[in-house]
């Protein structure tokens, strides 16, 4: 636990942890997503992970915006608020910046956080507010019945774009890095183990963690991630391990090398040789490496990095400051208020 506070809720978490189970984090509300929705898998992973993280339900807070993803909070038996569309990061900032004894999570969709909520997302990342942002990216607007989103491919045909969408998508990881994110990762809904590992890393990160989760919307955008999802997709998953050479493929036969212009590309190890492989370093202060990784695949149609691209230490927003202020507040009494009332020039009328 670093001096400047972890903001990951461990504050005041001294002594023995209560023994917790997945059930402690399951609310009594019936889950209402479509059968087969990727959200179910994510929910299960998160509920299973929470006891391991060891912060009790009452000190865990889930905040969401509007969207199918946003329903997530109702299924967690923690404190939670289903805010308005796009504002979850700001709502969560108010909580995380005023209470450093809580573990604060944000669940948001690609429309919620990248369309209407873009501004709050980039500012929460810039400030490095201690919140864990889970972006359920299904590359579509689910709740409103299937319009394209800022992560849909250009030319996407939807109800709102019968002739195909005109605008190219964001690369969520690249945008997060451009917004100074101190922790940037990606995982895939059905990869239970990988989801758990990635979210555990996010939970342990001090400051803002941004995790893009490829999530299949089997009703309005089924199969969007097939190239990197499930058995068929495994060979295209470039699983990043800090300190390890970056390799992937059915037989780990492919790897990632750096081009002269600083960008990263995919190569066959036979051709380039082991030594040419780039070794992943998630802790680089300079972002160039992380950005090159984020730009390695613009769309999840081929080899795509998953795991933690970047995790660096930088001062956590509100940490320290809030503690100071809380102490000051604890010390403030009504007689201090009287002093304040009587400050400046005063005079007496008798």
């Amino acid at each position: 636990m670093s001096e400047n506070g972890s903001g990951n809720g461990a504050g005041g978490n001294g002594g023995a942890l209560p023994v917790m189970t997945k059930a402690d984090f399951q609310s009594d509300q019936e889950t209402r997503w479509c059968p087969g929705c990727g959200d179910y898998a994510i929910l299960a992973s998160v509920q299973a992970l929470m006891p391991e993280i060891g912060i009790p339900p009452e000190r865990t807070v889930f905040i969401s915006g509007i969207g199918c993803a946003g329903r997530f909070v109702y299924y967690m038996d923690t404190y939670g608020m289903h805010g308005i569309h796009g504002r979850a990061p700001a709502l969560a900032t108010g909580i995380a910046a005023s209470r450093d004894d809580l573990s604060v999570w944000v669940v948001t969709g690609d429309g919620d956080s990248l369309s209407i909520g873009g501004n709050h997302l980039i500012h929460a990342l810039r400030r490095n507010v201690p919140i864990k942002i889970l972006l359920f990216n299904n590359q579509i607007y689910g709740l409103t019945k299937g319009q394209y989103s800022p992560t849909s491919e250009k030319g996407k045909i939807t109800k709102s774009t019968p002739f195909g969408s005109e605008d190219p998508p964001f690369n969520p990881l690249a945008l997060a890095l451009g917004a100074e994110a101190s922790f940037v990762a990606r995982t895939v809904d059905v990869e239970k183990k990988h989801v758990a590992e990635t979210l555990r890393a996010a939970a342990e990160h001090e400051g803002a963690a941004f995790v893009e989760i490829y999530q299949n919307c089997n009703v309005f955008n089924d199969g969007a991630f097939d190239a990197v999802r499930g058995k068929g997709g495994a060979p295209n998953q470039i699983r990043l391990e800090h300190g390890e050479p970056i390799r992937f493929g059915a037989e780990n036969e492919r790897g990632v090398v750096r081009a002269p212009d600083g960008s990263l590309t995919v190569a066959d190890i036979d051709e380039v040789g082991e030594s040419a492989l780039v070794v992943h370093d998630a802790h680089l202060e300079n972002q160039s490496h992380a950005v090159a990784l984020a730009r390695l695949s613009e769309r999840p149609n081929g080899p795509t990095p998953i795991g933690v691209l970047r995790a660096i230490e930088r001062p956590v927003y509100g940490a320290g400051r809030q503690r100071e202020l809380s102490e000051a507040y604890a010390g403030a009494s009504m007689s201090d208020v009287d002093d304040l009332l009587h400050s400046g020039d005063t005079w007496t009328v008798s």
Partner: protein
Amino acid sequence: MQLVGARFTAATALVGNDLSTLPDFPAEIRAPAGTPHGVSAFQIHFASRDILTPGDYPNTLVAMNPAALSAHLAALEQGGTVIVNEDAFTKGNLAKAGYEENPLDDGSLDGYQLFRVPMTTLTTRATEDVEGLKPAEAQRTKNIFALGLISWMYGRPTESTITWLETKFAKRPAVRDANIAAFKAGYNFGETTEIAATPVEIEPAPLEPGEYRNIDGTQAMAIGLIAASVRSGLQMFFASYPITPASELLHALASRGRFGVRTVQAEDEIAAANMALGAAFAGKLGVTATSGPGMDLKAETIGLAAMVELPMVIVDVQRAGPSTGMPTKTEQGDLLMAIHGRHGENPIPVFAPATPADCFTVAVEAVRTAVRYRTPVILLGDTFLANSSEPWRIPDSAGLPEIDPDFAAAPNTGDEFMPYLRDERGARPWAIPGTPGLQHRLGGLEKEDGSGNISYDPGNHALMTELRAAKLEKLAEELPELEVDADEGAELLVLGWGSTYGVIRAAARRVREKDVPIAVAHLRHVHPLPANTGDVVRRFPKVLVPELNTGQLLSVIRSEFVVDAIGYNKVEGLPILAEEMEHAILEALS
């Protein structure tokens, strides 16, 4: 008062006795009593025919250097405006003037409206393109720069001053151009950086015994919020996005770390409102402040706060005009927006302080109401209240009402926790994160009575709509009754709200001096209205509602009580004058 010094002399920098020839500039400009030759400060004293509030004397000290400040500050009325030439506050000059700390920074000017302006730099730059101007001459235009700035602040027209400068320096084109350039630069500086004039509050009422201080509305509101925070045991989380004139409240609170006040400059107003709401959910005193344009943006979040029924205070320092309007001017144009400016049926309380000092009291009340009823409360101030000041009999903090957060600590139905089970006031339990066993989820979807679960049930929606409204009905009963100050046989009730309190009272005094009986009442709670409001307005054959808008409270009174009340409305970005008010009253009576 001792302020009024000897007539400004020809020796002084500010173009001396030609001043009388300065048209359209009603302010008499005087050298402070006992000013040395080559005056380094001057004070503005507006004749009462002038602006803002009747018979009042906004006093402004322009100090060109530390010496001038130290020499004349004492003489300046508390809460007055101090304009300093920041450039001149050098180590050397400070020492010369006997200052150890820079008074601009050490808070010793807290009681005043301080404007730090780098006049030397600005005038130098403004005049640098003038051909054949001597440095000394350039320097001397500083005061004209100041005159320009003051002209902006007090809304003086500029043309005539310029013509006057032209004629005065006709023979010395360089000096003429330099002075005109400086004058414009000063005027534009005021407009460009949204500097607002600081009226001083009108005739203080006969003073009761006690300890007094001078206070402006911004400071009073800041202290009120702090007092409520300490009293309630709820640490304040104040999130705001800068906007004229509300920024001042952010500035006032930002330095109050001693009271644990957490201030955040958010990325925008929507974020500020959400941060405050998030803090409220976390068990803090969530407050946000803005002005008109920012209120538009907060609407959706305020609506959510009303739905999740969490305590929160939203301060709207009303400014003039729709859209960007006239940011430095005053108006009461946001009343109906405060009441109705959210989609759906979304009732929340709206309070409006009547005087600068009253901002303290009403701020405390707003916090108490928000906490007692678990509801966002809108506090409607305005530019005039925020900037103007009045002598204030300092209240005893012991007299402040109790504010009990009354956090939920245990299940409230068997071993279940029902977040929407209500108390006698209709308020729901406030269970904050960290409390074991009370985990619950809030949100903007309609909720089931009691459990708070999502519900699309028609009857439940009708019920919840009723229950949310019922909280305001209950509050209306709890509010202090509307007091009427009525003369025997008064035909007319003058019913005001917010910052028109002073001028209505002043006008009433004038009317009564003419032995015309009238009644006056003032609303500090504009939504809901105090329970007896109907009885009050129905007691009088005529009701006059003066407002700085086109008749917003008027429409409320007419629709609530079906009385044919009439309005007196001024929409000029300026407060009503006592003369105007007096005239309107007599008009209404005739």
